[in-house]
């Protein structure tokens, strides 16, 4: 609790710890994320970056600590409730439905017909179609709406998955290595995309590519052995001797 | 290859002989046998020279082990009847169907035999479940079933002749014997978990408590196929019954007796009387594993009488000298003979007439000795106590008087 009034963070992680058979993958972590902020988490392999995302979205359960999102405690909520509360998460490898068309992939994430009978009697209304087309234009796949998703290029698949998250209109968007395996021009396009979509929501990104990080990050958090090693602007972090030693140095 | 050659060369003269027999039968039938229209007014598959019967057992599946003996015995009886001139001058032709150890299949095949093949009689079934499955069909189609297995009773259909013993025949004499000979007062009842053991034990309990004045110190059932009897042997040791009264069946049998022996419960210390071990089962259990224990049956292969000697000889001649004959096998052998006698008495193949003729029918050529058909279509028979020998045979230590079949015993239900 800080004494003076700051805008309340969208996401407040405090004292978060998770241990696997005694090994603390995330250790007493504190992290705050503001509205409209793009935060990038970096760190060497095994630093616990992906685990943090897993903890936020409910895939892994915390051993102790709390995750407050818009005033709601996420650590006790079910995964789908966390999503419905407004948290979207993209996986490290593009995770899309290869056998379905791009349209169907996006439609699948439309936040209606999420319950059994809702899905059974879900109708493809004009509203749904409009929303799908809007998002498809945003991610640059308007031309491929009816092709099978499995046929897209690797970069396009990454975008499609981001598009699927956008369909849900989440308040917090979490992206695990969104530009892995992308060409230089695709990276640039992705950076642009991220800048556009971060309007009105918070974005948490895990990324290794420093150029890309520089181009999007408002603030960078460095994780090491499950703890925050440093936090601040990209420049500040890059010049932090501890960070150089463990991560950037070699 | 060799066996095939000898097989066919052996078969050839027999075929010729059969053909000749059939021809002469045809000639004879013009004079001797009655025309089909007279002996068969209900549209059965009977011609002037031939009558068709069905055989319905499991040749495959888990029950095949048990039913093979019955199939063989019925075949033998039918062959013998044919060789001696058939029934009312007609040769018996067999249609064999496989129930495949599956009750709906039994029902399906029974229907086929009765509806399509119009067989005059069916020899078949082994388990109660298969009999229950086909029973409504026999009653509806007015067929005739000869059922060979000793069973729980509580049934009496005019369309079934029960050639095995019903429960009271098998159980009461056995219990009386152990009570008298061994002075048994306390009993441990034990069976596989299904209707026959449960009904049998129910009857046994009533008899022990109400008639013998004894006490049941344990009664329990194990799932079919169970192979772990360790806790049971300990319970037996704890309760120290004078007699273990057992109706364990199938694969469990082997495990049960082996484990009894291993736990030191052997015949020199403990009396055991079983309802479910015949020579067939002993083959799997091994005589040495239960030597000295007793079984209560109406028939043992070692029965010493001329009928049986002849039967055993014929059976071994046909199926090899290793073949063993159990209680049910003998009962199955009676089926065709009882049917023949009834048909000839009725002078007709019509089921109603054959059924009417069956009551009171006597057969003194049965391997088990004299049997008589009761009005309730079960057989009057004797019950014997056999003691297991290490060689897999029984030695008969006691023989009862002729016992009246009583499928609905008053006071035991």
């Amino acid at each position: 609790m800080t004494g003076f009034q700051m805008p309340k963070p969208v996401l407040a992680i405090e004292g978060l710890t998770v241990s696997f058979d005694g090994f603390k993958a995330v250790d007493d972590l504190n992290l705050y994320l503001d509205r409209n902020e793009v935060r990038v988490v970096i760190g060497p392999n095994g630093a616990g970056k992906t685990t943090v995302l897993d903890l936020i979205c409910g895939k892994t359960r915390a051993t102790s600590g709390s995750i407050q999102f818009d005033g709601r405690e996420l650590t006790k909520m079910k995964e789908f409730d966390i999503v419905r509360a407004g948290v979207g998460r993209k996986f490290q490898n593009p995770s899309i439905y290869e056998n379905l068309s791009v349209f169907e992939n996006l439609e699948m994430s439309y936040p209606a017909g999420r319950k059994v009978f809702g899905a059974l009697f879900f109708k493809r209304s004009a509203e749904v179609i409009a929303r799908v087309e809007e998002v498809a234009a945003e991610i640059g796949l308007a031309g491929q709406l009816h092709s099978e998703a499995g046929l897209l290029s690797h970069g396009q698949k990454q975008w499609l998955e981001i598009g699927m998250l956008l369909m849900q209109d989440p308040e917090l968007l979490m992206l695990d290595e969104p530009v892995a395996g992308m060409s230089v021009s695709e990276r640039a396009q992705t950076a642009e995309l991220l800048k556009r979509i971060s309007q009105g929501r918070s974005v948490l990104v895990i990324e290794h590519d420093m150029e890309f990080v520089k181009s999007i990050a408002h603030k960078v958090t460095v994780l090491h052995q499950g703890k925050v090693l440093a936090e601040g602007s990209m420049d500040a972090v890059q010049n932090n001797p501890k960070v150089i030693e463990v991560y950037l140095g070699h | 290859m060799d066996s095939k050659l000898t097989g066919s060369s052996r078969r050839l003269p027999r075929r010729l002989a059969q053909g000749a027999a059939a021809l002469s039968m045809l000639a004879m039938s013009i004079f001797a046998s009655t025309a089909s229209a007279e002996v068969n007014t209900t549209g059965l598959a009977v011609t002037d020279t031939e009558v068709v019967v069905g055989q319905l057992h499991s040749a495959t599946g888990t029950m095949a082990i048990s039913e093979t003996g019955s199939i063989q015995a019925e075949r033998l009886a039918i062959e013998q009847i044919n060789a001696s001139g058939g029934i009312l001058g007609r040769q018996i032709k067999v249609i064999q169907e496989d129930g495949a150890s599956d009750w709906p299949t039994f029902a399906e095949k029974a229907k086929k035999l009765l509806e399509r093949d119009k067989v005059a009689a069916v020899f078949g079934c082994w388990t109660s479940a298969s009999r229950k499955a086909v029973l409504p069909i026999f009653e509806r189609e007015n067929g005739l079933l000869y059922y060979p297995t000793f069973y729980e009773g509580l049934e009496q259909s005019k369309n079934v002749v029960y050639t095995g013993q019903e429960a009271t025949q098998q159980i009461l004499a056995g219990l009386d014997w152990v009570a008298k000979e061994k002075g048994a007062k306390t009993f441990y009842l034990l069976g596989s978990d299904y209707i026959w053991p449960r009904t049998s034990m129910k009857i046994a309990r009533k008899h022990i408590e109400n008639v013998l004045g004894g006490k049941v110190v344990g009664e329990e059932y194990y799932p079919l196929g169970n192979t772990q009897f360790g806790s049971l042997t300990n319970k037996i040791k704890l309760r120290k019954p004078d007699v273990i009264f057992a109706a364990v069946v199938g694969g469990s049998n082997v495990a049960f007796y082996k484990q009894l022996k291993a736990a030191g419960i052997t015949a020199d210390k403990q009396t055991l009387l079983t309802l479910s071990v015949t020579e067939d089962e002993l083959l799997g259990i091994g005589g040495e594993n239960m030597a000295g224990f007793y079984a209560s049956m109406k028939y043992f292969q070692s029965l010493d009488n001329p009928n049986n000697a002849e039967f055993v000889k014929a059976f071994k001649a046909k199926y090899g000298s290793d073949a063993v004959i159990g209680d049910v096998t003998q009962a199955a052998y009676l089926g065709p003979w009882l049917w023949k006698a009834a048909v000839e008495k009725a002078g007709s193949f019509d089921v109603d007439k054959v059924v009417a003729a069956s009551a009171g029918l006597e057969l003194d050529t049965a391997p088990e000795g004299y049997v008589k058909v009761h009005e309730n279509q079960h057989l009057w028979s004797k019950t014997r106590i056999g003691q297991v020998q290490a060689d897999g045979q029984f030695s008969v230590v006691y023989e009862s008087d002729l016992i009246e079949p009583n499928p609905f015993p008053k006071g035991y239900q």
Partner: protein
Amino acid sequence: MEWLSEFGAIAAMQGFNGLSVFCVLLLMALGLAIIFGQMGVINMAHGEFLTVGAYTTYLVSVLTLKYLPELQPYYFFVAIVLSFVIAGALGWLAEWALISKLYHRPLDTLLATWGLSLVMQQAFRSIFGAREVSASMPDWLMGSFNPTDAIDIPRNGLFVMAVTLLLTAAIFFLLYRSRWGLQVRATVQNRVMSRAVGINTKKVDRMTFALGCGVAGVAGAAFTTIGSTGPTSGSLYIVDTFLVVVFGGAASLFGTIASAFSIAQTQSIAEFFISGSMAKVLTLSAVILILMLRPQGLFSIKVRK
């Protein structure tokens, strides 16, 4: 006083009974724990490999009795080795022809091995006949061992226990102390990486499967001392066996042992107080309930992915 000592004797024998049920379960489950736990293959024909071992023992006993009757007391040791070899060889064949094509499709291996089990059952029936057979036991395996007058410890139970101990120890040694075991565990954890460091993963898979089947064969041989052998004997065990492995937590050999122990004790104790059928229902239901609470089994390792 006498009553008390008798009660003690019964309790001791009942305890022994629990142990011997435990050994039976463990013997059944060991092979499966290797195959299912280490390779993720659901081998529904496991019971049939067990039966292969049992029939092998039966054949050896018949042949010994016929040709070398003076060696009858010792045939069992030959039979156990042969059971291992034959069941293992058949397993090797099955892996080569069937399983190797179906990795990563666990539910399909389940169906294919079920098919294999039907074929094997019918083969047993064609070769040995539908009747159950029983190997003749050497005298030293019959009867009981009496530490006191009131206590009978079945010798065949002791024998099964000894086989279980030796086999478990051997498997532990193989898996955790030998180079081959290291390769198996490496392959389980990371197939691609193992291949990269020069492990012939195909060979490892095949040997693992063969080993699992061979172990089942030994179990089958040991079971001839307590039960009979028929074409469908193996199928009686399959559900129990899978439950033991699943309950223990598939990847853990310790888990398998613990689970066999707890299931055996539950079953054995329940049997003492209620009827055998109901004891079985009770045990199975308890296992399922606990599985619902701990879906990954008793001893699952928490891993981060």
